[in-house]
């Protein structure tokens, strides 16, 4: 993933918005960059072919409302990118909250909140199932991660299990019984260890056989007991490519209910497990880091959940106090997919006016919300 030129991006420019009909939790490109995948609330895994040039008759719908940030008047016309929806992958129950892609192959792994895990060919016109584990977990599978070599798939869930699966056939390789609900996980860049963050925002480290926990890293400042509600702040774990830094991100909660909290990402020196700088963004209404996409230019592109109606995409460098770029044109950002070329990314947000008490109107159908996908270009 090398940029063709050596300019390190410092900002993003909004190019285009694409309407979808579902609420999206997580979105990723295939390693070849031709298909965009999205884990959706309507129990589907959606797919779009990503085109660099427009189709003759593009069957696409653009979002009516343009984002607030206006392009400068002298800006060049937006690049002619398009998304063409492919048939979605179905057969899930509840939500599909997480997906992961193979580092080299066009395979996508996805899991639902009822415990099903599977692998599909991501780019074929019709979805092709490679394998499935209908009861990989008892209930909500919260996050998936694929090892750097692509041989192992890790999963964690509300059933307090962390599991490792063989990416080729879905065979369970390891199963760790945690004492708590496990929210997030990541392989170390060398592929030898798995780190996972729990309900109380504690991070544990285990070799990939999951036989034992070899150490703990404390991010429990991201957990809060608000009245009797446990608020788990830690939602994302990411390593720097050299494996020396662990970025533990989410939110420092200030209260339950509305779940107010300030986006926090703690930089840990991984070898020592010591916390270094904590990146803090905005205030108590800015919510969670829900995803982190590592850019080879040395920073993360991150969506912030915000409160209903607000949200942002920020660029953060590990070890820095706060972000160096922010785009606030999208509401309730959920996920960011960096295109393998390193010059584009797609962010999933939420439609405006997604919240409100009672029915939005007494007439007409009662509709669900949806996640527009915004395409951004990275600029120096």
């Amino acid at each position, binding site marked *: 993933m090398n940029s063709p030129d050596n300019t390190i991006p410092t900002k993003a420019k909004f190019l285009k918005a694409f309407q979808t009909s579902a*609420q999206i939790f997580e979105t990723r490109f295939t390693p070849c960059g031709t298909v965009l995948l999205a884990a959706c*609330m*309507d*129990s589907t895994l959606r797919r779009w072919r990503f085109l660099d040039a427009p189709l003759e008759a593009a069957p696409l719908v653009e979002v009516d409302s343009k984002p607030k940030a206006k392009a400068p008047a002298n800006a060049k016309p937006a690049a002619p990118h398009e998304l063409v929806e492919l048939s979605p992958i179905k057969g899930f*129950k*509840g*939500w599909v*909250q997480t997906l992961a892609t193979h580092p080299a192959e066009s395979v996508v792994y996805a899991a639902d*909140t*009822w415990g099903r895990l599977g692998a599909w060919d991501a780019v074929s016109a019709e979805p092709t199932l490679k394998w499935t584990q209908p009861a990989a977990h008892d*209930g*909500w599978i919260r996050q998936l991660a694929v090892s750097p070599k692509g041989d192992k798939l890790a999963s964690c869930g*509300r059933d307090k299990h962390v599991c490792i699966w063989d990416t080729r056939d879905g065979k369970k390789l390891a199963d760790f019984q945690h004492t708590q*609900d496990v929210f997030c996980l990541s392989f170390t860049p060398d592929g030898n260890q798995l780190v996972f963050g729990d309900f109380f925002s504690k991070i544990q480290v285990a070799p990939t056989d999951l036989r034992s926990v070899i150490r703990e890293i404390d991010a429990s400042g991201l957990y809060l007991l*608000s*009245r*009797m*509600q*446990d*608020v*788990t702040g830690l939602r994302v774990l990411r390593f720097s490519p050299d494996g020396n830094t662990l970025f533990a991100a989410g939110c420092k909660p200030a209260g*339950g*209910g*509305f*779940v*107010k909290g300030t986006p926090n990402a703690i930089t840990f020196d991984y070898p020592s497990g010591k916390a270094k700088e904590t990146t803090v963004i905005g205030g108590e209404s800015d*919510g969670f880091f829900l995803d982190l996409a590592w850019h080879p230019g040395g920073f993360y592109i991150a969506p912030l*959940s*915000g*409160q*209903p*109606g607000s*949200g942002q995409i920020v660029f953060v460098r590990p070890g820095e106090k706060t972000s160096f770029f922010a785009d606030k044109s999208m*509401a*309730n950002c959920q996920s960011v997919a960096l295109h393998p070329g390193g010059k584009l990314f797609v962010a999933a*947000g*939420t*439609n405006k006016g*997604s*919240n*409100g*008490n*009672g*029915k939005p109107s007494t007439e007409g159908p*009662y*509709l*669900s*919300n949806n996640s527009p996908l915004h395409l951004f270009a990275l600029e120096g």
Partner: protein
Amino acid sequence: MLCNPTEHQISRRRFLGTAAGVAVAGGLGGLFSAKAAEAMKANNKQVLFVWLDGGISQLESWDPKPDTLFGGPFRSIPTSVPGTHVSELMPACAKQMHHLCLVRSLCTKDNDHSSGVARIQRGDPKNRGVLYPFFGSSVAHLLGPMESNLPPYVVIKEGQGGFRADDAGFLGPAYGSLAFGEGKPPEDLLRNPLLTETEDEERNALRDVLNRRYASQRRPSLTEASTFAYDTARELMRRQDIFDTSKLPAKDLERYGRTDIGTHMLIARNMLESGVRFVKVANYGWDTHGDNFNSHASLVPKFDRAFASIVEDMAASGLLQNTLVIAMSEFGRTPRINGHAGRDHWANSWSLAMAGCGVRPGVVVGATDDTGVEIKDGKYDIGAVFHTWFKALGIDSEERQYKHKGQPLPLAHEDMTPIKEALA
């Protein structure tokens, strides 16, 4: 000479069958008549009112819509009543479903906390220009205190406790609630350490003597009210055990959960067993506009354990027969999931749970459609629910009325009637 405080038990335990609370002269003469005995029996009804402030999501509790557009991530599970399912977050309540009666078709009017909380708890009668009492105050007024002499309307909650007159509306402060904040007693409840219990009893016995002498020359009602207040005070002081959290048995705490709601529910059980007429357990923090699903995953199981345990215990001890149990919020939560994975306020179609006295067990009343947005069957506003509760307690709310400044006022919304399917 000073009398022993126990010598005038009878006069203290005034017959309270229809007495409108503390200010009404007791009809001692009727105490031993058959009719009065009957009334006494009818009058041992109690209420446990579990208030989940902020709005529990019906979809993550009593009315799950698994694997539908608005159904959320959770599965549903079967219960002890074949054909009835609840959210997987409620495994313990699922086992007690044969004691419970669910109403899944509440359709109320207020989406706003500030007005909704009061409207729901006051039964939202037609605007009469007077402030209606909370259900607890109504029951305190209509049924009076129990023989125990403990205050009739007690609230167990987090935060501050104290005397809350507002609850009583037009019934007046005497029917307000006594709140135990964090399960702790109100100010001045504990005996001053400078006094021994004997000394305290002696001076009270003298006060009784002085009062009886005073009352003998006047109409007795005011002195009786004072006697009642002091007796209640004595009873509360004597029964410190019922709210002393350090004395709750570990085994029970384990079952109820070592959480706010678990502890408070256990205190509630003690209070009901000790003879408090109406116990409200107020639990806060259910207003999950953001991250609703993780919030409910944390909150609901805590409620589930505590609620299922108390229902189970009360069923086993027989207390459930005479106790109306209610668990509800001021509204439910929107089917639509907002951009912060939250659910907002929703009064259009939501649920409550009941059990015990006068309630038909093991039934589900009403139904919502596949997405949980509209009510398919049996729409009920809170007025109908109030009628149902009164009926379950043996109070004919369609006949009986309050008297306020000489004006008759209905107990509950006069255009509504009890939910028949919910009544035993």
